[in-house]
C-alpha cells in the first residue's frame, strides 16, 4: 500500500521508460518480421520520450527541465512518425522485391 500512498517521483517514470526501452530492444533483437522490428523502435523511442516528459514535468520535480522536456518529446514524436514512414516504405519495397518481409532475407550485400 506504500506504493499507492506515496506521490510519484521522477524515477517512477524512469523505470517505466526503462521497461519500454528494454522491451523495444528485445523486440528489435528477436523479431524477424521487419514490421516487428519497426515496432521495437517505436517502443524504444517512447521509452525515451517518457524520460523527457518526466524530467520536464513540474508536477514530478520542482527543479524540472521545464519546457525543454516537452519540446524534445514533441520532436521525438514527429521524428518517429517520419522514421516510421521511411521504414515502412523500405519494408514495402523490400516486400515488393523479395516477396518477403523477413529481415533475415535482407542479405543482398553479404559478400
Amino acid at each position, binding site marked *: 500500500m506504500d*506504493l*499507492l*500512498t*506515496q*506521490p*510519484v*517521483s*521522477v*524515477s*517512477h*517514470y*524512469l*523505470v*517505466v521508460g*526503462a521497461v*519500454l*526501452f*528494454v*522491451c523495444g530492444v*528485445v523486440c528489435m*533483437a*528477436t*523479431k*524477424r*518480421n521487419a*514490421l*516487428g522490428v519497426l*515496432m521495437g523502435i*517505436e*517502443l524504444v523511442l*517512447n521509452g525515451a*520520450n*517518457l524520460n523527457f516528459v518526466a524530467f*520536464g*514535468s*513540474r*508536477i*514530478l*520535480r*520542482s527543479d524540472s527541465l521545464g*519546457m525543454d522536456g*516537452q*519540446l524534445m*518529446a*514533441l520532436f521525438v*514524436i*514527429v521524428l*518517429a*512518425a*517520419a522514421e*516510421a*514512414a*521511411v521504414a*515502412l*516504405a523500405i519494408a*514495402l*519495397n523490400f*516486400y515488393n522485391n523479395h516477396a518477403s*518481409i*523477413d529481415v533475415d532475407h535482407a542479405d543482398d550485400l553479404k559478400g
Partner: protein
Amino acid sequence: MMLLAAIQWHTFFFLLFSLLTCGFALAVVFSSNVVRMAFFLTISLGAAAGLFFLAGAEFVGAMQFMIYVGGTLVLLIFGVMLTAHERFISMKTKAGEWVMAAFLGGGLFLLLVRATLMVPQWNAPNLQRDQVAQSEVHDSAAIGAAVSAYRADSLPSSSAPPAAAVPAGKSVYLLPFEIVSVHLLVVLIGAGYLARAKKRNPGNAWQA
C-alpha cells in the same frame, strides 16, 4: 475508508497506466502475431499518453494520440495488411534467440534501473506539487510560445524583478521546429517515392 482516503489518486492512476504500458509492451515482445503486436503496441502507447497527461504534459499526450497512435500506428497496420501473407503474420523466434535477448534485455534493464535509482533527486517526489499553479502545468500555450517567441518557464517569477530574461532568439525552438517540419515533408515525399512499385511489365523480364 481510511485506506481509501490515504490513496494518492495521482499515484493510483500512474500505476494503472504504467501497468498497462509495461504489460502491453511485454505483450508486444512475446506475441508472434504481427497484427496483434500492432494492437498491443497501440494500447501500450495509448497508456503512455495517459502517463504524459499525468505528468502534466497534456499537449504531448494529445500529440502522442494524434501522431503516434492515430497516424504512425495506422500506417504500421496498413503496412502489416499490405504484407499480410499467412506465413508472415506469425514468425516464430528461435529459442536460442530468446535466451540471448533475455540476457541482453535483463542486463540492460538492471543497468537502467540502477542508474535511475542512483540519483537521489529523482527519487524524491515533489511534495509541493499541489502548489504548482494550474496555468504553469497545464498550459499548452507555453509550448506554442516556446516554439515561436519566448520561453514562459524561463521568465522570472512575478515577484522577482525581470532582470535576466531570455535573450531574443536564443533557446527558442523556432529553427528546430522548421527543420523538423521540412524534414517531415521530405521524408513523406521520399517514403511515397520508395513505396511506389516500379512499372511491372511481364513482357520485359529485365525490367520487372
